């Protein structure tokens, strides 16, 4: 029995496991990267998804989940948004991978340049990493310098200069990458002092959202220190807005926090699940940007660009950003109240549309893992170690149902760890 005397839900993940057993024979790791089940709950969580709609998805065993990962960010309007799918379908009908870019590329570039206040130009890729690595090169080209300063624990993608894994990295890959502590102006200023006139760029996310830790919004002193270093040392500020972009502010997350970078990278939510990434920059970097080679076999694909245009249109038309903020706030308040009722001390961090929950003063994550497993068991897919995402498809009813699920999960945490 569950703590509140409801029958203990016991979803089967047999089909997921069956698929996994086949997968591991032919795919190293079975499922690799961020979707690797070892991070969520091996054996107690869905491994394979079969369909999704709105804010819900179904796994290979037919279990239904209210989703708080949104494909790890891209799904901003809900899965299978009808209008986006229609726009994509229409474009697909005319052709996706062509010899030349489609007119849609020009339309989208113009749209992004008009949306993002400091942007005068825009380029496209497929993944976030395509853009962060390219932006670094543009900064190096423009400044003719080597050094890149980044925050400790920040994720900027899977290229050797920043990938968090250990394998296949040589010292030289990181020889010119140096880290400072987030929200610690002195740590940044000291680092900048050391590398002074050799700094090409500071790369930051709009706020700090490391895995396995609370999210941290930037404090004013820290933002001031970044501006100071940029001015004093003549380096660029690259904003990696891949995770937060199009969830906090339609003009880019820098508007939400009130600063202006030199380059900004977007991906994830830009096309509601269609593969697309973009980098925008200011006029003074345009010539340098043309000197850094940029291409990919699929990077001119028209379908994702059509989907992006429609996604942005809907977000703007329906004020999707406010909607996510509202639902995120409702979720956060509900979770906080429920945890408090159970006498559990939790930390809800991050902006409401990209929330995260940790158990206060817990460095070994046992409670987080148990909480997540209990929520998943009851039909709310949340991650124990990675921030969550809201979409405009989450309704009040979905949020309330999630809070009810979390309430039972909190009670279970309380029983297991604190009683």
């Amino acid at each position, binding site marked *: 029995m569950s703590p509140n005397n409801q029958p203990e839900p016991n979803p089967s993940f047999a089909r997921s496991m069956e698929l996994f*057993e086949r997968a*591991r024979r032919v795919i*190293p790791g*079975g499922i690799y990267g961020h979707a*690797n089940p070892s991070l969520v709950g091996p054996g107690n969580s869905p491994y394979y998804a079969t369909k999704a709609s709105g804010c819900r998805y179904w796994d290979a065993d037919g279990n239904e989940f209210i989703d708080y990962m949104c494909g790890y960010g891209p799904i901003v309007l809900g899965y299978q948004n009808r209008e986006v799918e229609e726009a994509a379908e229409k474009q697909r009908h005319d052709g996706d991978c062509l010899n030349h870019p489609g007119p849609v590329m020009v339309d989208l570039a113009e749209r992004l340049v008009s949306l993002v206040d400091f942007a005068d130009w825009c380029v496209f890729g497929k993944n976030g990493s395509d853009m962060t690595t390219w932006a670094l090169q543009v900064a190096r080209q423009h400044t003719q310098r080597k050094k890149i300063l980044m925050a400790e624990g920040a994720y900027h993608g899977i290229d050797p200069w920043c990938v968090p894994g250990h394998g296949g990295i040589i010292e030289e890959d990181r020889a010119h990458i140096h880290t400072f502590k987030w929200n610690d102006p002195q740590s940044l200023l000291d680092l900048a002092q050391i590398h002074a006139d050799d700094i090409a760029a500071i790369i930051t996310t709009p706020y700090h959202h490391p895995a396995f830790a609370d999210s941290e919004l930037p404090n004013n002193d820290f933002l001031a220190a970044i501006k100071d270093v940029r001015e004093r040392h003549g380096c660029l500020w690259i904003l990696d807005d891949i995770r937060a972009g199009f969830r906090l502010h339609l003009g880019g997350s820098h508007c939400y926090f009130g600063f202006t970078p030199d380059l900004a990278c977007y991906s994830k939510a830009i096309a509601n699940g269609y593969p697309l990434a973009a980098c925008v920059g200011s006029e003074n970097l345009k010539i340098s940007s043309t000197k850094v080679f940029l291409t990919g076999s699929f990077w001119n694909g028209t379908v994702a660009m059509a989907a992006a245009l429609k996604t942005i249109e809907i977000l703007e038309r329906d004020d999707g950003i406010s909607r996510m903020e509202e639902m995120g706030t409702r979720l956060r308040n509900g979770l906080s109240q429920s945890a408090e009722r159970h006498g559990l001390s939790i930390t809800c961090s991050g902006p409401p549309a990209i929330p995260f929950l940790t158990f206060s003063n817990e*460095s070994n994550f046992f409670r987080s893992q148990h909480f997540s497993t209990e929520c998943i068991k009851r039909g709310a897919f949340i991650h124990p*170690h990675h921030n969550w995402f809201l979409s405009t498809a989450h309704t009040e009813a979905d949020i309330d149902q999630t809070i009810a699920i979390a309430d039972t999960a909190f009670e279970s945490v309380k029983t297991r760890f604190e009683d």
Partner: protein
Amino acid sequence: MRADRLAVGPYLSPYLLDALSDSVSLEFQPSSKRVASGAFIVSVFWKRAFMKPDTDPFESMLARLHLRAVLPTLVELTKIDATAKELVGTLSFSLRFKSKSGIATTLQFDKGALSIDPDSLIAPPLQFFFPSDKQINNLFLKRGFPIILPNWRIWKLIKMPRFQKLSARLERILKAAPDELRANPELLETHIHLLLTSLIPRAFIELARNERYSKETLSGNAGLIQLQVVDTPIQSWLDCQSTDFAYGSGQAPRSPDLFISFQDLETALLSTRNELDALAAVSGGEIKLEGNIPLADAANAVLDRISVYLTL
């Protein structure tokens, strides 16, 4: 990665005694003439060794692992293996291996109970001094001709045959081929026991303390790890704190931050041999991982480093 220099077998063997006897005969024949000639040869070795200063960090790390992870596994062996216990009997003697670089380990048999003191300051009556870290590795790897300079109380060597047999026993268990291990469950359990409760945690600590990559990888990842093989008595723990590391066999002294359990001996065997898709094994349930995952990730990266030096 120094794949071309992977150790082929990090274990002591009868070769130790052969090598030692060669050195001994150089220095300790009663005739003064032979002593003189022995001293001459020793001094030639000495010069040769010192003309090429031992600055290779790979050799130094490897020597550390040999002296502070492989050799001390004799302690665990004498606790769990009947043959080893019998061999030791009531032996009392101590023996120190020391390199010019300072890397040392002292084995102390006290009425059959073996203990290890890597940092002992008192030189025991029997000490083998190696003019370089590489020479230690030569001995363990049966590579080239090891230069060993025993101290003058070499008559203690009389106890060596038993020590030699003990080393051979260790080598036999650690180096047993997988097929042989699979055919002999008892041997397999002893093999895994020695690796998981001694050699691997000891090697981990040496790397964590002395290798830059491992230090950096572990920095900011503190916690207590409990390791176990389900349905066996094999259990050990590793305490990684920002200032230092400790390990022990059995249950962790306090509530662990990370549990790593191997479903069975076969999974542990594959894992220690680096033949397991660990990512898939965790998702598939053969390895259970609970708790501080970043610590598991960092620790795993350090454990992976063991195979850069030693072939398990």
